[in-house]
């Protein structure tokens, strides 16, 4: 690949969130750790922090999705940002105005961050390459390619319950071929180093050369579920249920549905996950979706913290990079070192001196227990 990946800056800072394929374990962990902090905000009476005050987040949804849109909206609101909801499903784009024309108009409105949901794989990458450098793009789902915030909140949910990834057997079952959630989940699971990712589904619903994604293929869900720690169901869309890929929802349930009997094949504390909305009686039995092992509703809750983390991290990283560049340009002393949270802390003016290594390494684990040497 000779095209530059717009997602990462020159020193590894996150400039956009487009997919999880190229984010390493350290970056994924950083996002999960940051989200951990935001969970506290959502538990108290004033569910707001001032981080993105004065910033504008625009939801560019070219495809309907109330669920994802409201989740991003809520996250942005809790960061004190202003929201702009741009309904592109019924608006000018259907009149033939090109995607690019629409983007130019939105750029003129001076938004700081675009959340993009589009039917074409690669749409978020395209938009990130086309819009002004200063605008952040967060992929809210592009065709079958990726849904990175969903993948992240799924990883967060797993970590909350299982604490570690390396000894987990995770089963992803259903329509992987057409699922952006599956691709993001699989990419993250592989990067985080789980013991095994198993995929199960009829061959019509598996992508070509699926093993190349780092998974093991099972034609039979029962076998796949033995000793599973996490089971991730996927939504089977209506149009797939009666076409040439799957004969009916009933037959799908019979062969690959997560019934209570099947669930009992997995470990007794196995997590049942699903991005929602579930088709009860097709992918999953109602009793399993509502049962004690299901964390489906929890996933939705963590989605807010994850999105708050992603938006504030990216905007924050960009601000610190800009400050470092400005300081460098002005020839300010002490503005050395890489950008990124700790490096940036070492960077500018009043904050010169920054963290004595402690925070650079990540905090809880610092054995010396240095206090931060920020200004107090």
């Amino acid at each position, binding site marked *: *690949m*000779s*095209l*530059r*990946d717009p997602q990462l800056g020159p020193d590894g800072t996150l400039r956009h969130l487009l997919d999880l*394929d190229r984010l390493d374990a350290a970056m994924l962990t950083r996002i999960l750790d940051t989200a951990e902090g935001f969970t506290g905000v959502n538990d108290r009476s004033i569910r707001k922090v001032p981080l993105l005050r004065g910033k504008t987040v625009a939801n560019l949804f070219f495809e309907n999705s109330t669920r994802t849109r409201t989740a991003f909206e809520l996250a942005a609101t809790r960061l004190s940002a202003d929201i702009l909801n741009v309904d592109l499903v019924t608006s000018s784009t259907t009149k033939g105005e*090109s*995607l*690019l024309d629409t983007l130019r108009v939105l750029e003129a409105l001076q938004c700081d961050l675009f959340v993009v949901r*589009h039917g*074409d*794989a*690669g*749409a978020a*990458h*395209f938009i990130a390459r*086309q819009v002004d450098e200063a605008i952040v793009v967060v992929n809210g789902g*592009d*065709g*079958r*390619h*990726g849904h990175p915030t969903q993948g992240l909140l799924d990883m967060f949910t797993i970590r909350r319950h299982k604490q570690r990834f390396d000894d987990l057997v995770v089963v992803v079952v259903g329509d992987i071929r057409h699922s*952006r959630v599956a*691709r993001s989940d699989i990419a993250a699971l592989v990067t985080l180093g789980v013991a095994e990712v198993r995929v199960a589904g009829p061959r019509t619903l598996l*992508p*070509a*050369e*699926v093993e*190349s*994604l780092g998974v093991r293929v099972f034609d039979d869900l029962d076998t796949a579920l033995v000793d599973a720690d996490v089971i991730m169901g996927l939504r089977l869309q209506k149009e797939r249920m009666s076409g040439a890929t799957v004969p009916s929802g009933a037959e799908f349930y019979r062969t690959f549905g997560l019934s209570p009997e099947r669930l009992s094949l997995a470990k007794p504390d196995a997590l049942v996950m699903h991005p929602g909305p579930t088709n009860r009686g097709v992918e999953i039995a109602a009793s399993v979706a509502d049962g004690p092992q299901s964390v489906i509703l929890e996933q939705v809750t963590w989605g807010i913290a994850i999105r708050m983390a992603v938006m504030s991290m990216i905007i924050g990283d960009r601000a610190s990079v800009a400050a470092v560049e400005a300081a460098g340009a002005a020839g300010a002393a002490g503005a050395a070192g890489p950008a990124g949270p700790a490096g940036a802390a070492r960077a500018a003016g009043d904050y010169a001196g920054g963290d004595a290594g402690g925070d650079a390494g990540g905090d809880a684990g610092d054995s010396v227990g240095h206090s931060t040497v920020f200004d107090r």
Partner: protein
Amino acid sequence: MNAAYVIRDVSLALEALDGGGCTAGGTLHDVHIAGGRIVRIAVAGSPAAGAGDAAAPDRSDDVDEPGKATVIGGQGLVALPGFTDLYGRLREPGPSGRGSLASETRAALAGGFTRVLCAPDTRPVIDDTATVELIRRRTSDSPGAAVLPMAALTRGLDGRELAPLATLQGLGCVAAGQADRPLEDTGVLLSAMQYAASFDLPLVMTPRDAHLGADGCAHDGAVASRLGLPGVPVAAETVALARLLELTRESGCRLHVSRLSSARGVVLVAEAKASGLPVTADVGIHHLLFTEAEIDGFDARYRAEVPFRSATDRQALRDAVRAGVIDAICSDHAPLDGDARLAPFPSCEPGLCAYDRFASLLLALPSLLGMPPSDVLERVIDAPARVLGLPAREGAGTVLAEGMAADLVLLDASADADGPVFGAGRNTPLEGVFDLAELTGEAASLRGVVRLAMVGGDLRLDARR
């Protein structure tokens, strides 16, 4: 044309360089052109070389001597017979902005082609007299490479009714085909092949099933799977190819398989040839260079009508070109205007323009494919003529010979292509790239510029410094 020329001190052969690329090789010659033909070739500096200009002070200079031949300096250049392209989209008739006969036939000359088989999917398609006449008129007005029109096999390329093939053949169409459009109805396909066979009109057909991978935009393999792009499986090519080959057997029609992309497709063609079927095949030059890896990161520069497949497929295509199972290399030239790529990958128009850099890509093939340069040249000079049943050139095909029509190019094999671009499209990843490694990681020098092109003795492109 009646102008006379003598090209002095020019090589007639290419030599492969150790590190990749080619250079002018062999003895220097003088080539005399008159009346549209090559009338004499003599070793440079020998007594037989030039009549009447032994006193010319600097033999490398262009000297216009009234009443005598114009001298063209060939120092450092190679004179070759012009190439014939078995698939180029010339975009006219059609909306402007994506090229015209004038611009694309000039670009073809810059690629080394003096003859182009022009794809029938113009707008309107080449399925009636008026369109063929329009093409003939336009090309005589602003001449570039000679244009051999390809007739649409069915009216409007709709796959339902036969186009008037015999009439179109009479007007100069040398082949018929369906461009990039699948032909769904097998009955219509058989009927068309039988009809074409009665007039000994070869078919140039791209094997593509009407339904498999119909919404695909990339090779259905590991990269498309990871990127979530709808894929075109190999089966879309091989199922259609198997059908074409069986119907060739039934109809006796001459079949040229256009723009193969897969290892399995190569196997089917090899088997068909071995069983004696009148089948030939070509590959687009970019398919010898690129694979599915190139689209990673949603790089729409590599979105092509016939997708770039796996590394294994590319290797099979290279082996087939070397062995001659694939007879010819075409350009698959598809110029697009600036807007065509301003959309997410699946919504982009497919196509790469090929003419302006074609010569430099061709010169990389001896090293990449492990073939002598003369064999590579055969794939673009003799083989296309043979495929179309055009008269063989007098003399040894890939080297200029006395008596040949003066369809020739002068090539500077070591120059960087950083001069003017003649085609209307800029949709190529090769702009400013002189080593393939920058794009794919495979080292190959991409050098070579056509400095001069002549069609029928008429000097139609002069890009000398």
